């Protein structure tokens, strides 16, 4: 098996997942509706004060994305179980990590689209002005999303064959995501409020390290967990 074969398999899986999701629509629409509703409810809970809303914006954005992401991750392997497609997928020749990589790419596209919508709604709803350091904010959003999606896709695969996978996934995932959530919220909040303490750099480096470590680890052990 060559790298060209691996790339072809990754592309095929990502294309298949994105096309399936695009066609079914129900999944995407409900996840977006859930994320936006969460933001609105957080807004009501925080009250009408503009300053309080702005300060809470980073936290609510990431929490809404986390909840919406869990729904998306569950769906990404559910599509394989629906028609018994997981067996053929596992029997195709080739390296198993390519299945994970393909699903990871599809989930990144899916959650990335949700993220774009959630950010726009947050900016509007919580009256957050676009910060000067928007490229850094964008970097935090990308790194945080990669961390979230990497572990989400991995644990969704792990929970696929269990009966209570909808419940099991958040139970497994949330504790592992505490560091990435903490770093992403802290970095976003610092950047949105001017980064007077110059703390965003450290959080961004932490996010980068987290992503590299978990991306490598999940690619390496995926074969073991999908065969279990």
């Amino acid at each position, binding site marked *: *098996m060559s790298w060209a*074969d691996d790339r*072809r*398999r990754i*592309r*095929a*899986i990502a*294309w*298949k997942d994105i*096309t*399936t999701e695009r*066609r*079914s629509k129900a999944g995407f629409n409900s996840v977006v509706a859930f994320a936006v509703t969460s933001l609105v409810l957080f807004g009501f809970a925080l009250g009408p004060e503009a300053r309080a809303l702005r300060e809470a914006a980073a936290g609510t954005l990431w929490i809404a994305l986390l909840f919406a992401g869990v729904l998306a991750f569950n769906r990404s392997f559910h*599509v394989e179980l*629906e*028609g*018994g*497609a*997981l*067996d*053929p*997928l*596992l*029997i*195709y*020749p*080739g*390296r198993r990590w390519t299945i994970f990589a393909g699903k990871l790419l599809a989930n990144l596209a899916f959650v990335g689209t949700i993220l774009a919508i959630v950010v726009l709604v947050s900016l509007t709803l919580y009256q957050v002005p676009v910060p000067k350091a928007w490229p850094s904010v964008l970097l935090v959003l990308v790194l945080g999303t990669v961390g979230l999606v990497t572990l989400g896709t991995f644990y969704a695969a792990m929970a696929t064959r269990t009966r209570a996978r909808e419940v099991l996934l958040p139970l497994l995932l949330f504790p592992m995501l505490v560091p990435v959530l903490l770093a992403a919220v802290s970095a976003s909040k610092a950047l949105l409020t001017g980064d007077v303490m110059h703390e965003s750099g450290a959080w961004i480096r932490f996010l980068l390290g987290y992503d590299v470590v978990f991306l490598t680890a999940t690619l390496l052990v995926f074969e073991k967990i999908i*065969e279990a």
Partner: protein
Amino acid sequence: MSPESIPAIEARGLARRFGARWCLRGVSFSVSAGEVVGLTGSNGSGKTTLLRMLSTLLAPSAGSGRVLGHDIVSDADAVRQNIGFLAHTAGLYEDLTAAENLRFAASMYGIKDAGIPEVLKLVGLGTVGDSRVRGFSAGMQRRLALARLVLARPRVLLLDEPYANLDTAGIAMMNEVIRGARDRGGAALLVLHELAPAEGVLNRLETIVAGRIGSPAGVTAGLGEPVGAAT
């Protein structure tokens, strides 16, 4: 050992346990190249489990298995390159069209010029290639799964109830695919509940009784009457 003398499928004491329950208790048998073997047995006897182990989907709890000389555990990818597996369910993506399902399979197999319209026509789905699988009947889905096997042209077929939901024409197509694998020097192992559709392709019949290969076929097949393996 020359390639011709290597059994296409070989099981040595294959066993599988689910929790405390042994589903298969040490199955040993072999299928030679050019042979089509039927596997019968009552519900829960372990037929599907055996097929899933041979197709690398399930790791054995004990024993070993080989497909064309490749170990099903240590050389699983080589096994996967040579087998075509069909489970109870068709294993299709319902929101993709028939042609897209095949295109995906072709990409995964690394087949560049798959001739998908021709394959669809061959299995009688030529006019519905652009329709989503969600609207297909069970028989049409089975035909599409059959098309996936045609596309891959595997040397060894591991088929679980291959005739389920197929009409007479579909059964004939399935038998043609099985004969094709046999004629290419491969082999096929078919899990069967009804033997009639496989008449004309079966060389031999094995029976699983309580997790073991049972008495010679036709004596304890448990299907009501002795089985005459057609050749």
